[in-house]
């Protein structure tokens, strides 16, 4: 028996509550968004929830009427909630999905409370023209109750940010930001679009093909600013009102967000009913050998060093500009990183993969005579795609794990531990299971490999002084036979 300290008790309670809150089916993620090229957005106010139970007053962009459509398409077998776009606001704003070359129009209506004043959108990286609204410093603005329309050509593929250009220190903090995804007009031949992907490739370059994609918008939130804004809005429900005077410096955020949510909410389902104003999650999954496109966006004010466990990633582009070698104009030139520092307003596209190459032990725990096989392709990976070990690194087939694991009674078991050092459900003598004590809380019933993806400025993996939380999620590398439903 282990006595519980205050901190341990709080942590245990949080984890238990998180377990209770999570759905029975494991959650996944994709890059959900709305399609255009004509968008009608509304800026308004509402409350967003955080895992510590706080309800925080926020501004955000939402849909003004029904959007033209939603992506990604839902393939057969998808069981997640139907996509929606709040008619008030969402945090972050709707992800706008368009195709390279399209003329994009965004009509913004200002439904913010009177004290909030004007609002607007800037689209870094695009040449924008405006119609309607009133003149502002960084962009044409929509006055209270009014509208403004922005038009630009989505000239380059890739990931871009958008955010308010009005009283930015307050309005961005309050939540007025989002992402734009521009799909390549001419994907390279030979690429196959994954069932939940937006496109077969990130750019019109063969090296940018991918199997799955996920969006990561990193931001932070200082609830004291939001409280000040709420108080002033409530003090003047009907205009004309004095402008909100919130103290935004010095800046001390106590919440840290991935796509508007913190762990463990960010591992819940996208479009989950429990987060009506935070539709997007951040819960990547993949199979061994798959290429995962990571669309990274720095929102908010701070830089965040986002560390992805498991492997490096290859940087393809920054701000939608593909990075190619000056020597031949064709070879990729972006660096290999294991930690990507996000910068406010900057985006980075990168591809992550995992193969298990070179571990020197069989991650599937194959034994001689068990009927398994590993037939190497030209690169050394198992070539039979329908086998349960598709993509296995054949040089390690049948090799035993080189150390003796510790006695199970002397270790603490993690919620995403698969029960054994191996990938996939293991047959352990007389039964097949996860080898964990009865009652163990297990978020990984498929016994995949879980890797924490998180800000490495580690205080940012807390939620209002409680660990775990904040900018943290798990990548799950699921066994090849496990169906990944990215709508869950």
């Amino acid at each position, binding site marked *: 028996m282990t006595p519980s300290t205050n901190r341990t008790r709080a942590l245990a309670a949080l984890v238990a509550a998180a377990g209770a809150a999570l759905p029975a089916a494991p959650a996944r993620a994709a890059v959900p968004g709305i399609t255009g090229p004509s968008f009608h957005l509304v800026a308004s106010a509402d409350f967003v929830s955080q895992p510590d139970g706080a309800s925080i007053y926020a501004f955000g962009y939402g849909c003004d009427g029904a959007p033209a459509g939603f992506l990604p398409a839902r393939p057969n077998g998808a069981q997640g909630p139907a996509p929606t776009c709040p008619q008030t606001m969402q945090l972050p704003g709707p992800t706008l999905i368009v195709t390279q070359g399209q003329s994009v129009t965004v009509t913004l209506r200002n439904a913010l409370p009177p004290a909030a004043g004007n609002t607007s959108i800037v689209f870094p990286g695009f040449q924008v023209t405006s119609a309607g609204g009133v003149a502002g410093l960084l962009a044409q603005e929509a006055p209270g109750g009014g509208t403004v329309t922005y038009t630009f050509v989505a000239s380059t593929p890739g990931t871009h940010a958008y955010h308010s250009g009005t009283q930015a220190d307050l309005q961005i903090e309050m939540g007025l930001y989002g992402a734009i995804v521009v799909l390549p007009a001419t994907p390279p031949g030979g690429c196959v679009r994954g069932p939940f992907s937006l496109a077969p490739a990130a750019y019109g370059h063969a090296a940018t093909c991918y199997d799955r994609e996920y969006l990561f918008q990193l931001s932070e939130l200082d609830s004291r600013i939001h409280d000040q804004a709420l108080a002033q809005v409530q003090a003047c429900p009907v205009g004309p009102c004095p402008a909100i005077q919130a103290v935004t410096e010095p800046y001390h955020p106590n919440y840290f967000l991935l796509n508007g949510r913190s762990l463990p909410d960010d591992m819940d389902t996208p479009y989950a009913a429990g987060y009506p104003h935070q539709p997007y999650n951040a819960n990547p999954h993949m199979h061994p050998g798959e290429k995962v496109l990571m669309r990274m966006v720095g929102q908010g004010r701070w830089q965040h060093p986002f560390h992805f466990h498991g492997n490096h990633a290859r940087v393809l582009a920054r701000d939608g500009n593909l990075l190619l*070698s000056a020597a031949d104009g064709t070879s990729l030139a972006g660096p290999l990183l294991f930690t990507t520092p996000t910068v406010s307003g900057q985006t980075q596209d990168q591809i992550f993969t995992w193969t298990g*190459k070179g571990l020197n032990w069989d991650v599937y725990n194959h034994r001689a005579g068990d009927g398994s096989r590993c037939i190497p392709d030209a690169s050394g990976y198992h070539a039979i795609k329908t086998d349960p070990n598709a993509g296995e690194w054949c040089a390690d087939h049948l090799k035993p794990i080189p150390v003796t694991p510790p006695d199970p*009674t*002397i*270790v603490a078991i993690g919620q995403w531990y698969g029960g054994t050092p191996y990938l996939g459900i293991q047959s352990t003598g007389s039964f097949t299971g996860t080898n964990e004590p009865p009652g163990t809380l297990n978020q990984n019933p498929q016994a995949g490999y879980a890797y924490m993806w998180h800000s490495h*400025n580690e205080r940012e993996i807390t939620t*209002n002084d409680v660990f775990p939380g904040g900018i943290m999620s798990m990548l799950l590398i699921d066994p090849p036979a496990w169906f990944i439903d990215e709508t869950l």
Partner: protein
Amino acid sequence: MHRIPRLALLLALGLSATAARAQSFRVQCPSATALHPRACSGGTKAGAACSAASDCPGGACAPDARYPGQIKCQEVGGGDGFATMADGHQIYLFGFSPLSGLADVQAGLPGTQPADVFNLGYLGPNYSSAGAGTCGGGTNAGEACVTVADCPDVTGTCAHAPNWAPTPNNGGITEPAGIMDMGVLAGNAPAPLMAIDEDDEFFLTLSNPGMIMRPDLFEQHTVHFHGYPNASSYFDGVPDASVAINIAGSFTYYYTAPDAGTYFWHCHITPPEHLQMGMVGQLYVRPRQDRLGPNDALRDALIAANKRAAVDPSATGLSCSDLLCTGQTPAPAVDTGARGGGKYAYNDGDGSTRYDVEYPIQMMGFDPNFHYVGMTFNPEPFADMKDKYFLLSGRGYPDTVNPKAISTVAADGVARPAQPLPSVIRIAKSQGQTRALLRISDLSVTEFTTLGTVGIPMTVIAQNARLLRDLAGRNLYYDTNSLTLGGGESADVILDASNVPAGTYYLYSTNLDHLSNDAENFGGMMTEIQVF
């Protein structure tokens, strides 16, 4: 009233029994593996496989030199300790203690050892007796002693524990009593330095002796090898995704050496706490290019290595066979004709990362308020964390230029070398040295920091343990006077003093508030570059 003491006593007995049954320190360091077998060297059986010297009449049973790399081992303890900040204040640590390689660690070197050295076993002082032995005879019989001079009677001897010696060797501590003795209150800042070579296998044992200053915590610890490619989640050290070792247990992590570069390691239990409290260290991998000689063409060797890694017989080896260059580096587009014989940061194939001296430097920060809370029994304020000690490898200026280990007297009255790493950079042009490699990693948990130089430029050759080169083989190194890193990032910098006059230069944080040791307003993240 009388019932309470009885109940407490019964509870204590029960807990004690439970703890006794659960104790399972176990250090693993095999002397041979399938990748690194042993063979007879010399004698009539030279070259034959062997397990012991008796298999090799007239020769020795040694690691088979025909297999590249070696088995390397290291042991660390996860616990607590104390360090001294440059303003003289003592600070409480959660820390990793060295339980092997102590001679090297205390000399500021990596504590990683070949298996044969590790398995010699520990010889050295022990902390609990502070080096004391017992006079074994004469008129001083039974009295404490350190050397025989303390037992002046001609028939006296000073008898120590069997593994005692005046100074430590590099053997591993494998006995539970030794692990507790040398692991308690022995946390280092930064954590023990680790270094391996490409083609090595690395067995890293984490033993958990507990945190004596925090008997209220039953803290697990883990090791996360930050940046390890194609990692297994089992050995990735994330307690949520794997398992974490409890007090009185050991976990042996296993790694095949990844691609060369500057990585780092840290505990992954409650990282905002354990990293802030000091459980961070650097780990670097030396390239196999270091093993080439003057007759070996670097580019040819790299192309051959790329081909081996590609497996595909049609691979040219000129570039990478997969998007992440697993086990590969693009061959340089320009063939410089460079040959081996030097020390290199990466398998560059063109000699461009050659260096004469190397310095691992870890950027860190400590928040003294948080450390005080961590030493007491109070809730921890993560959002308001504010570092006020800004450190390079566990020290602030001017301690950064102190060439010796810094010892701190802990709560038990024993001084331990808790801060073994100076970061003074010395380039002896008079001895033919011109190029210094700075292996820089940032393990701050709060802020991005910029390091600058004045008078001597930096060439950044790598980021995140990967050479800056595009897939066409073009070097993307850049010259600069500033380097900005956030937590969890690393970079390799070459300082070239060829055209720099002798003198003292500085590497310092250009975040000027980071040039302080708490209220002492000059110091912090700064060190000297001495060119002579």
